C-alpha cells in the first residue's frame, strides 16, 4: 500500500516536472539555448495567476488562461530582450547560457521587489482529498494527470501535423536547411518560446494554486527540468517527459526504504550513473540520426 501511494505521489510530481521539462526541452532543441530563465517564466506565470485571481477577482478558469498567456508572453519577451541581442552579436552558446542565468536572477530580484518575498496564497486551507481505501489523492494530483493526458497528445499532434509544428522539428534537426527552405528563424523562435513557456504556465498554475507564489519558486523547478532532460536524453521530447516522470518516481520511491535525507543521494546518484553509463540519456539511441 505504501509503495502504491508513493508510486502515485511520484507520478503526480512527475507530471508537473514533465510539463516544465518538456517546455524547457522544446526550447533547447529548437534554439540551442539552455534557457535557465524558464524558471523566471514559470514564476511570472504564478504571479499573473495571483493578480488575476486575487486582485482582478476573475473566475479561476479565466485566471488560468491569463496565467498561460502571461507565461507565453513573458517567455517571448525574454527571447526578444535577452537572447535576440546576443544572437545578433553571434554570441556563443556559453554566453547565451550566462545571459539566461542573468535573466533568471534579475527576474527573481524584480519579483521580490514588486511582490516582496512573502508567499502569496491563492487559496485557503488544505486541498480536497479523495480516498480510495488506503490510498489518498489530492485534487491537484488528479488535475496534473489530466493536463498531461490532454496537453501532451495535443502538442504531439501540433508538432507532427501542422506547418509550424513541422518547422519547429525541422529547425531542431537542421537549422541551415530550415533557412534554405524559407523558414523565418527569428519568428519561429518566438513561437517556440511561446509554446515552451505555455507548458510551464500549466505547471505553475497548479503549483501556485496549491502552494502559493514566491519569487524564487522557479529555481528548483528549473533545476529539475535540466536533470530530467539530461536523464531522458537531450534533444528528444518524449525523453524529457520520461526523464521527468522517472525523477518524480525516484524522489518518492526512494522514501520507501530510505529516509528523506537520502532523496538527493538517490536522485543525483541516478543522474551520475546516467551521465557515466548512458551519456545520451534513456533514449539516446533515438538520436542516432540527429544533426551534429
Amino acid at each position: 500500500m505504501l509503495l502504491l501511494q508513493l508510486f502515485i505521489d511520484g507520478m503526480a510530481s512527475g507530471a508537473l516536472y514533465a510539463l516544465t521539462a518538456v517546455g524547457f526541452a522544446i526550447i533547447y532543441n529548437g534554439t540551442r539555448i539552455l534557457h535557465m530563465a524558464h524558471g523566471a517564466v514559470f514564476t511570472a506565470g504564478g504571479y499573473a495567476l495571483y493578480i488575476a485571481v486575487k486582485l482582478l477577482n476573475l473566475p479561476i478558469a479565466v485566471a488560468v488562461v491569463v496565467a498561460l498567456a502571461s507565461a507565453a508572453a513573458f517567455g517571448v519577451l525574454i527571447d526578444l530582450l535577452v537572447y535576440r541581442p546576443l544572437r545578433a552579436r553571434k554570441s556563443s552558446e556559453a554566453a547565451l547560457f550566462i545571459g539566461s542565468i542573468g535573466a533568471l536572477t534579475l527576474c527573481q530580484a524584480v519579483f521580490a521587489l514588486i511582490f516582496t518575498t512573502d508567499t502569496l496564497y491563492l487559496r485557503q486551507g488544505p486541498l480536497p482529498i479523495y480516498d480510495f481505501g488506503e490510498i489518498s489523492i489530492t485534487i491537484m494530483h488528479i488535475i496534473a494527470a489530466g493536463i498531461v493526458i490532454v496537453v501532451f497528445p495535443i502538442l504531439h499532434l501540433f508538432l507532427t501535423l501542422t506547418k509550424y509544428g513541422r518547422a519547429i522539428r525541422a529547425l531542431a534537426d537542421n537549422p541551415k536547411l530550415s533557412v534554405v527552405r524559407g523558414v523565418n528563424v527569428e519568428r519561429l523562435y518566438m513561437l517556440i518560446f511561446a509554446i515552451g513557456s505555455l507548458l510551464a504556465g500549466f505547471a505553475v498554475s497548479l503549483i501556485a494554486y496549491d502552494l502559493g507564489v514566491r519569487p524564487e519558486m522557479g529555481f528548483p523547478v528549473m533545476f529539475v527540468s535540466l536533470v530530467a532532460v539530461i536523464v531522458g536524453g537531450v534533444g528528444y521530447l518524449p525523453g524529457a517527459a520520461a526523464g521527468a516522470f522517472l525523477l518524480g518516481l525516484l524522489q518518492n520511491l526512494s522514501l520507501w526504504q530510505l529516509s528523506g535525507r537520502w532523496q538527493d543521494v538517490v536522485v543525483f546518484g541516478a543522474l551520475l550513473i546516467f551521465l557515466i553509463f548512458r551519456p545520451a540519456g534513456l533514449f539516446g539511441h533515438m538520436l542516432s540520426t540527429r544533426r551534429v
Partner: protein
Amino acid sequence: MQTMNSNRLRIIFAAASLVFTTVLSQAQEPIKIGVAMPTGGQNGEYVKRSFVAPTEFAAREINAAGGILGRQVKVTVEDTRFDGAGAVAALTKLINVDKIMAVFTAFTPLTLPQLPVAEENKVIVVAGAMEHPDLTKSRWAVRMTPTAEKAGPVIADAANKLGMKTAVILSEENEAIRISVRSFAAAFEKLGGKIVGDETFKTQDTEMRGQLTKLRAARPDAIYVIASQGRIMGLALKQISEAQLRQKHIFSNHLVEDREIKAIGGGISEGVIYTTLNIDPAFAARFKAGMGYDPDANAAKNYDATMLLFEAIKRAGTDDSTKVRDTIYSFGPYKGTVGDFKFEGSGEPIIAPILKVIKGGEFVDYKP
C-alpha cells in the same frame, strides 16, 4: 606687531574650537550597534519582521526617551545573504567601517562563523532567538531563548500525559532542530513511548508528501513537526492535513504562530500544542502600535535582547564592550517581555519554554 597678535589669536581660537568640538562630538557620539542578518532573499521579509524590526523598535524607544548615558543609539543593518562567508563579510564591514560594539545575529549557520571574528574584535554577539547550544560556548555571545534541547522534554511530557503511545517526527534539516528532535525522542522513549517514524525535509523543499505518506503508514498517535521558519511550517501543516495521518495530536514549536500559517488558513494549525515563551501583552500592544503588526515570539526575544544590551550599557556606565559583556554575564534576574531571565556567569539565560495550544485560531495557554 598688530598682525602677529591677530595671527596668534586666530591660532588659539582655532585650537580651542577644535578641542571644543571634539569634546562635544564625543559626548554626542552615538552608541553604535550593528545587525548582520539575511535581510534579502528567500526569507528576507520574515527576518526583517521578527529580527531586525524589534531591535530598531527598541532603539527608537530608547532614543525617544533620551538615549543611554545621554547618547543616542545608532543601528546599522547589513545583509549577510544566507551563507557563512556573507555573514563574516557583513560583520567585518560593520566592525571596520561602522565601529560597532555589539552585533545582532540570527541563524546557526550564519552566527557560528561570525563568532571568531567578533571575539577577535571584542564585539558582543547578541543572537536573541538562536537555539543552538554551542552559541554560548563563546565568551562574547548572549541569547534570549531556551536552547533547542529544552523543548523536547516539555513536549514529551505533555504527549505522555495525553496518553500518546507512539509518535512520528517530521522536521526540517537543521542542526538546532536536530537537537530538539533528539531531545524529544530521548525523553519520549524514556517515558515509555515509541518513535515509529522520523522523516526530514530540506529548507527549500515544497513537497513533503512522500515523507508524510511514509509516516502515515506508521499509524502514529502523535506527530511532532518542527521547522525553522513559518513559511515551511505552514507547508508542513498543510500537507499533514492533506496526507490524513489520523494522528490524535500535533506538537510543534512557536513558529505555528507565524502569520504565514494564518495566510494559508483552513484551520491547519487548529489544536496544535507547541513550545513557546509568553509575550507580555503590554509590549505586544506597544509594538503593534509602532510597527503595525503583532510581534511573534522571535520578535519579542530580539526586543528583549536589545533592551538587555541597553540596560547593561546603562549599568556599566560605558559602551566599552568588555565591560558591557561582563555586566550582562553577571546581570542576575532580567525581566523581559517573554518572561523572567537570569544570567549567572555566562550569556546563557536560565529560562524554560512553556506550552500553548491553538484554539479557535487563538494562541492560548495549554492546560493538560
